[in-house]
């Protein structure tokens, strides 16, 4: 069962065919939190500790984007061992009122993005540790490749 040796690198998202980021929603005021490590509400007028872990919207719109032409320093490790430039997007989730950073899915670059592009959460391999693929969330444009993004 080597095919099942895939785990999230961090427990901030769900796996499977339709992965979602996990956040925490305040039961008192409705404020969302990401990453889902918040123990109490960040709203200074609330401070409730009744936080519930919830799946965040799978789709959002690009607030801004950039890319990494040079290999970032450790602890970043290129998954294939060799640096391949990748894009990064800051994505706004409307209902949650959050902007969340993530890499853009492999195969997509800045030419496939515009401010306002609709993207959705996917998971890809971050690193392989002792034969186990550890995954991370990424943002993938919803329009197909070559679909007019550039």
């Amino acid at each position, binding site marked *: 069962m080597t095919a099942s040796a895939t785990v999230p*690198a*961090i427990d901030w998202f769900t796996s499977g065919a339709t992965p979602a980021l996990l956040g925490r929603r*305040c039961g008192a*005021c*409705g*404020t*969302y*939190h*990401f*990453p889902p*490590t918040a123990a109490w509400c*960040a*709203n*200074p*007028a*609330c401070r409730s500790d009744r936080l519930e872990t919830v799946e965040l919207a799978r789709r959002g719109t690009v*607030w*801004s*984007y*950039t*890319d*990494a*032409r*040079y290999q*970032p*320093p*450790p*602890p*970043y490790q290129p998954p294939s061992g060799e640096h391949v430039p*990748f*894009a*990064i997007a*800051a994505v706004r989730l409307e*209902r*949650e*009122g*959050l*902007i*969340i*950073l*993530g*890499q853009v899915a492999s195969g997509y670059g*800045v030419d496939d993005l*515009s*401010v306002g592009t609709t993207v959705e959460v996917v998971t890809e391999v*971050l690193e392989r540790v002792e034969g186990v693929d550890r995954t*991370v969330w990424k943002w993938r444009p919803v329009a197909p490749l070559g679909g007019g993004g550039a």
Partner: protein
Amino acid sequence: MSNGVAVLGVGMHPWGKWGRPFVEYGVAAANAALDDAGVAWQDIDFVVGGETVRNGYAGYVAGSTMARALGWNGARVATCYAACASGASAIEAARTRILAGLSDVALVVGADTTPKGFLAPNSGERWDDPDWLRFKLIGATNPAFFGLYARRRIDAFGASCEDFAAVKAKNSLHGLANPNARYRKAVSAEEVLASPVVADPLRLLDICATSDGAAAVVLASDRVARRHTTRPVTIRSVSTVTPRFPNVALDLPDIATDSAAAVAPPETGFRPSIAAAAYEEAGLGPGDLDVAEVYDLSTALELDWYEDIGLCAPGEAEKLLRDGATSLGGRIPVNPSGGLACFGEAVPAQAIAQVCEITWQLRGQAPGRQVEGAAVGLTINQGLFGHGSCVVVSA
């Protein structure tokens, strides 16, 4: 100013990539500031260091490291860390102690020795450290954040890469005659545009380097200052404010913003609120400024600051730049020192260096880059993890 604190002395160790212990730079800057002030080290009653996280334990306790290197004199000591804003926090610690009547004359020092290339987080497995996680999970370097902000200017305000390049060209001319600048060479916009892209849309010459360097100031009460000078330069205000919830700008090094689902964002965003607090405390406004030193980590970020300190309305920074208003000889010269474009960043020293430059400008001691008749100046930057940094100084 009855409640003023005087900048009695300023000093720097030139920025560069010298590769020597940060303490050497700090001592050189401190001695220069003491000489400039005409104050003996033995008369300093409070020492504040800007912490560096890259130089081991000595860097964590930078205040006492400097005090020891200068020769223990019994002064009270503090060390401040606020990332890029560390210097302003250190100045504020000294200033408030003087204002409280607890100190007469204080020395503030920041110094750093930096590695080549990207600033990186501390090593080890640090799964609860947001700074480590943004590198580990996303590979989001500092320039990546600068790229996100630059792209927003292009999208929201119609800025171009040519505008960004023009900021570098301007600052490179400003710094030509600055003896403390690391890069003293005219750079054309064409050269910027021909340099490789690092973090789209920013190129290598749009992004500041990391440098070694040190800066120091001697601050004194009015009473002490009057013994040394008849025309002291005065700190009118220091703003070290934090954001107000929800902070909906994606600030370094965060992976996500606050949520605006339940509470509407404040009318004034974090960056403009830094300057607003400084103006309010000083009883001055952007119209009173003659000169400003802003934190141009990237060329595009300098344009953001024009708007955040109120030199123009949002979206008008490119026009201000193109009109030459922020060049030497213009209406409100910005970064006459050459800015980070000519210095590179030496984190705990940088906000202090900004105050050194404004002090020289207000004294008329900035040959080759002098803003004629400058009487009021402002410095601004923002440190990781919600640290505002703004100092208003007047002649």
